[in-house]
């Protein structure tokens, strides 16, 4: 049952991926844009690409987004990592003590 479920999920995701890519429904690797009414708007991404080197001073735009513009998100990500490590250590310590 579990294997059938996993197989079904892989087949569904694969078919969706191949379908969306090959029919140009969503052009593969295209610039992320937001649709407002008829026209596509990608002004936020364009503004970040233009202003990031002056505003944050980092040559790598991804870095300036990750820690400059979206600092809170990344802090949350680090907190998730901390929670994961703490829970793994806790579970395996309890497991080792019981044996």
């Amino acid at each position, binding site marked *: 049952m579990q294997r059938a479920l996993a197989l079904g999920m892989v087949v569904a995701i694969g078919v969706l991926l*191949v379908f969306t890519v090959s029919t140009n429904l969503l052009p*593969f*690797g295209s610039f992320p844009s937001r649709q407002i009414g008829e026209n596509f708007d990608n002004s936020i991404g364009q503004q970040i690409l233009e202003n990031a080197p002056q505003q944050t001073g980092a040559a790598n735009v991804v870095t300036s987004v990750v820690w400059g513009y979206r600092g809170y998100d990344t802090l949350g990500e680090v907190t998730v990592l901390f929670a994961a490590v703490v829970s793994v250590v806790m579970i395996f310590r309890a497991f080792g003590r019981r044996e």
Partner: protein
Amino acid sequence: MSLEFLIQNALLVFLFVLCLIAIELKDLLYSVIVLAGASITLTVVFFMLQAPDIAITQAAVGAGVTTVLFVIAISRTRRRE
């Protein structure tokens, strides 16, 4: 139908096939190795999409750490499904 488009589609189909093989294999150690190969394929796809940051992360985490973690887990439990 550019060459890049064809290569990307071929890589995606290859990734799909590798994931199917990883599910179908009965020997879990082989399955983990096939999964590392799928991870490397995904790295190439990310690199072709001009996302080198994600490509580095995928290569380090997907092919490096998770493989070792799975191998340790298999060595402590049963190898065959």
